[in-house]
């Protein structure tokens, strides 16, 4: 990994992808790093493809532009693989984290280069089990923490819980905490 880790999220409007990027940045802040989190600003429409970005670094972040060469690409909805080139600008050693259950189908669609790695977590299934709604972002944030090595699972879980704490009942807060932990535990390389 570079001194600065650049992350690009692909999701759909209304899925909470932008929130996930924010929560991850916040969790990395607790470890003393410099962080950025921002979406691609366009018309906001539920279901439409969107991108969000993170930069996480040991040194001050001065770039104020989209991530063009991501170290890590996250795909919150695997159906995006049909219409979007999620590998655009990726390095030979970039990592991909896909929210999906069917691993074989993903392998075929991703067409990775030799040095690139792909990880899968079934975030939607985990979310249904823990939160009761198909919002895969908490498991994805847990999985991202694991594969990036940027932050410990307990810190992320606490941060996610805190971000829900003010507005949601105990059940939802705890559900998201568990979702993060399960994302961390269940993500695997394919």
């Amino acid at each position, binding site marked *: 990994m570079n001194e600065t880790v650049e992350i690009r999220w692909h999701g759909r409007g209304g899925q909470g992808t932008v929130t996930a990027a924010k929560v991850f940045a916040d969790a990395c802040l607790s470890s003393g*790093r*410099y962080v950025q989190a921002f979406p691609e*600003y366009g018309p906001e429409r539920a279901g439409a493809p969107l991108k969000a970005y993170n930069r996480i670094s040991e040194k001050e972040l001065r770039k104020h532009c*989209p991530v*063009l060469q991501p170290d890590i690409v996250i795909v919150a909805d695997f159906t995006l693989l049909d219409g979007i080139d999620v590998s655009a600008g990726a390095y030979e050693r970039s990592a991909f984290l896909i929210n999906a259950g069917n691993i074989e189908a993903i392998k075929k669609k991703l067409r990775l280069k030799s040095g690139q790695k792909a990880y899968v977590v079934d975030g939607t299934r985990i979310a249904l089990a823990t939160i009761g709604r198909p919002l895969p972002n908490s498991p994805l944030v847990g999985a991202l923490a694991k594969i990036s090595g940027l932050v410990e699972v307990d810190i992320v879980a606490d941060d996610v819980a805190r971000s829900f704490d003010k507005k949601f009942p105990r059940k939802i807060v705890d559900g998201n905490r568990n979702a993060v932990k399960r994302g961390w535990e269940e993500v695997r390389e394919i």
Partner: protein
Amino acid sequence: MNVAVAVTGNDAMAHALKQINPDVCAAYPITPQTDLMQRFSEFVSDGEIDTELILVESEHSAMSACIGAAAAGGRVATATSGPGLALMWEMLYVASGMRLPIVMPVVNRALSAPLNIHCDHSDAMGARDSGWIQLWSENAQEAYDNLIQAFRIAEHPDIRLPVMVCMDGFIISHSICRMEYIADDAVKNFVGWFKEKNALLDIENPVSYGPLILTDQYHEYKKIQSDAMERVFRVTTDVAAEFEKISGRKYDLFETYRMEDAETSLIVLNSAAGTSKDVVDEARDRGIKVGLLKPRLFRPFPHKQIGKILQHLKAVCVLDRSDSFGAYGPLFTEIAASLYNYGGKPRLLNRIYGLGGRDFLPKDALLAIEAVVAAAEGKTDLALKEYLSIRG
């Protein structure tokens, strides 16, 4: 204690306003400023501060309310963006002409038409001659720091002029980044207690604001206003020195980056300066002696000091995020004026970038560096003014 946070530029500005707790704020929503004042209004509604919040029906009214409240004797603020600032146009001159120390974040946005909500500097540049002091900010930290310092500059007895604090819309206003909040007490002590000397509500000592002044004295009145602007350089520097004591951060009228042995330089405002610094570093690694200068105080403009820094260079490329159609970009004109009275004259180039929120990418900064290096090497067929990265 100062604390590191991950927040948006709008969060940061709202937090500064909360710490300052002005007497009166007028608010009218306009993207991308909206959630700045929305957040601030939450602080008021939650009873965290006791600012009198006036919800108005337009930006013209917002500035009018600020003018009335400031003349009455209050510490006053509002915030706006793009077309909102344009609609304030008439009242901007009233605020500065009445010498009212109003402070206003401007979250930079393009002007219509075509309709566009994204960042460029056409709004604030259109207001550059309105008699307002302008501070420009690269990121959320600088926006927060500038906003706190703005009150001290505006209210200084030698100045008494309104201040705009500019920050790039969306790019900074809506992006989360790490920055540091100063402790509430330290901010409160820094801005201090504001006591208006000529308050309309001080009925023991009646005064008039905004009377008719015709051909006999208007000219002299404006000369006094112009003289006050000249004093802003000293006051801004003094306030920055004091601010360093509570923040540990150093501010000047402008920032220079890797200029010590530079032969060429980029001149650029706000967030694009950050991206450009990274590209300057990469060029330096390849042995290119390029530096960067980022104005912080745009009104008044420190022509003399900037001229001194640039006069010995071979070439300078000025990046403008707005255009003066049929002329050069507004920043270019100031840089040209900074250099004319000095012996050595670098070649000057003007590049227009990022209008209506077009991303300013590292490759754009590189194009500017390549152009300024070519100019330094004596290449003659370079366009003096050009739009960067125009799509086919």
